[in-house]
């Protein structure tokens, strides 16, 4: 892969009930990313937006953010899915040799919709929707299967919630920052056994944008470039009954491919900071395993060891992760943006000192059907 760098990032503060329109949200982050990169729109020749007609409540939802993302008069395209996939497509367009600088945007105003009904629409229309399946109920099945197989405990899941909500206190963009204990999580209201109120991510509005550039363009940028060292995505089976819900083979496949590109043999040692898509607390433990941070079934032990806390060997989700802000389709791109801030040493109170290699991870679909893994570094290949 030729060298491509991320040279600009922009995020809104994540909150519920943001009164800005889709276009205003996207304009805010487009402007921030351009300012961050020290660029004007004239320097951008390619735009990738991210929309979803269900979440946005309009058909051809990309129309609503076209001007705000700066795509008028430029080559543009639109991805539906997590922002890590939009960024991946932006990377491919940048690598094609046709474009110099690509802006990737994504937005979410889930507060205007009914998330349970919208996620229900992702289930099989004949067999599953009628059961009222949604993100929480399906994830509860996955959490139960995972815990049952490997003996992971509810307390270990709660530790993820305590860690990430505490980390969020250092992140000015976070939606839900809390000082809580394992006991608080355990006593929070049961939503779908074994998932409790404090095990789940909030419904957040917000937007994020990044700018990808060719090597030549990146060398002229205002900020130190963050180089894309490896990236891959992979999709598992659709129906929950056809998947091994207790282990994500798709994540393992994507991670191995990204690691191979990046020359990473021992991810736990070689990665300095990771931002993973913890939509539910148990997910972070499962993703540790799929990402090869620990052996299968050992995610609970890993969080218990404290090695993934701030100050640990491999801090995971210094930003507070998705548990502290969950703008759907934005959350994966926000992981990339946070990884970039870490590698520039600009992550403020949530900075992992001396981070050189960072991992960002996104998911799409029910119970993490699709995974996308990014390895970024402030050092060139």
């Amino acid at each position: 892969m030729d060298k491509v760098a991320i040279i600009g990032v922009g995020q809104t503060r994540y909150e519920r009930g943001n009164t800005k329109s889709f276009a205003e949200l996207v304009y805010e982050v487009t402007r921030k990313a351009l300012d961050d990169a020290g660029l004007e729109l004239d320097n951008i020749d390619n735009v990738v937006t991210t929309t979803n007609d269900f979440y946005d409540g309009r058909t051809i939802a990309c129309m609503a953010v076209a001007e705000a993302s700066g795509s008028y008069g430029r080559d543009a395209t639109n991805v539906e899915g997590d922002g890590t996939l939009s960024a991946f497509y932006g990377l491919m367009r940048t690598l094609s040799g046709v474009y110099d600088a690509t802006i990737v945007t994504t937005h979410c105003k889930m507060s205007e919709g009914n998330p349970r009904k919208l996620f229900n629409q992702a289930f099989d229309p004949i067999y599953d929707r009628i059961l009222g399946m949604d993100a929480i109920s399906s994830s509860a099945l996955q959490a139960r299967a995972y815990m049952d197989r490997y003996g992971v405990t509810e307390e270990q899941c709660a530790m993820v919630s305590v860690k990430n909500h505490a980390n969020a206190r250092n992140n000015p963009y976070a939606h839900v920052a809390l000082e809580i204990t394992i006991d608080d999580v355990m006593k929070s209201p049961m939503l779908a056994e074994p998932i409790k109120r404090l095990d789940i991510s909030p419904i957040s509005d917000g937007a994020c944008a990044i700018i990808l550039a060719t090597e030549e363009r990146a060398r002229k940028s205002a900020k130190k470039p963050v180089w894309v060292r490896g990236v891959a995505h992979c999709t598992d089976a659709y129906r929950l009954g056809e998947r091994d819900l207790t282990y994500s083979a798709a994540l393992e496949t994507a991670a191995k491919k990204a690691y191979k590109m990046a020359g990473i043999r021992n991810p736990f040692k070689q990665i300095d900071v990771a931002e993973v898509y913890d939509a539910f607390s148990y997910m972070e433990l499962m993703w540790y395993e799929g990402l090869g941070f620990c052996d299968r079934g050992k995610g609970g032990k890993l969080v218990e060891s404290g090695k993934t806390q701030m100050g640990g060997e491999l801090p995971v989700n210094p930003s507070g992760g998705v548990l502290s802000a969950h703008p759907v389709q934005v959350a994966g791109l926000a992981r990339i943006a946070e990884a970039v801030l870490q590698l520039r040493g600009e992550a403020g109170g949530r900075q992992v000192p001396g981070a050189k290699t960072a991992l960002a991870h996104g998911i799409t679909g029910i119970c993490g059907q699709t995974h996308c893994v990014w390895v970024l570094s402030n050092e060139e290949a």
Partner: protein
Amino acid sequence: MGTRTAIVGVGQTYHTSKRKDVNGQELINEAVRRALEDADLTLKDIDAIVIGNMDHFEAINCVDCWSVDGSGAFMKPIMKVTTGGSTGGTLGSCAYYHVASGLFDVVMAIGWEKNSESDTQAAISTCADPILERDFFGGAIGPNAAEYAMYMKQYGASEEDAAMVAVRDHNNALNNPYAHLRKHITVEDVMNSPVLCWPIKLLDSCPRSDGACAVIYAAEGRAEKIASRPAWVHASAVSHDYVYFGDYDWEAMPTLEATASRVYKRAGIVNPLKEIDVMELYLPFSTCGVIWMEHMWVCGRGESPRLIREGVFDMDGELPVNPSGGVLSTNPIGATALIRIGEAALQIMNKAGSRQVPNVNTAMATAFGSCYWFEATILRSGKP
């Protein structure tokens, strides 16, 4: 600077207004199997998949995830792209960039739609701004009708000029075994068909179809081994207009002009009428087949009706347009523009059967949708 990329396989379903014999995944699979068969490949050879449709036509969220049983994406990379009517063009360029990036060798694009499961025009109407424009945006037909009414007034064109385009496309469809509408028609038939939104009549208008299309792209090195005559991608371009329909300049068509100019420049084309051998154009209404030729720089302003009357765009003319029968004969929306690319590729590959134009070396395909979002692709028999 980018891996050279070619189309090596094309597959499409049969199309009709209601494909009650298959569900969505089965419909997708029908196109996938045909594309694999066409390229003599198996699913194992496919490194990545891109898929697209319009969400509100089938009401399935996360189609990339749901479609795995049909697309064959199990334990493979798949992503979804969508831009309304132009989705098929967006899909083709997405697969092209997958390969051109050097990250994937063989990539399949899949477009599909089961329009029969939706109220198409009602779903399209929700693309307009919910506060300012949705109440009076009556679906896709109004803007194109207004566009041709203005054109007729400005250049003295007639309803018959558009009808001749309808006759051309519909009658070309008689040579296409995959086409949805296959019936011989005359200019009188078009003129006597019911007015939908003046000056557009029923036979000037595209149908809505159930169907799917899959197109396989491969990198230089693989492509020549897969296909004896691959269709090389020389350029892809896109541009779109403003968000609010009220902001458009309906007579200038700046986005089609920008897309055409950009794709010609990238492919080194100076005179499209002379240098392009066949075009598969996304013409949702026959009226577009009059006006848009000018904005694609095929001829000067107001000259299109004369060229149409002279038969320049007929099968035996200088620049045959829509040998397949085009959108007027087949329109599974998320697949429609990918079919244009697939048909253009078949012409280059010399596999278009009885709709084959002789000696095609350069072909152009376009896509149209959303906020006057135009995409264009130039394919050639020679490498870029």
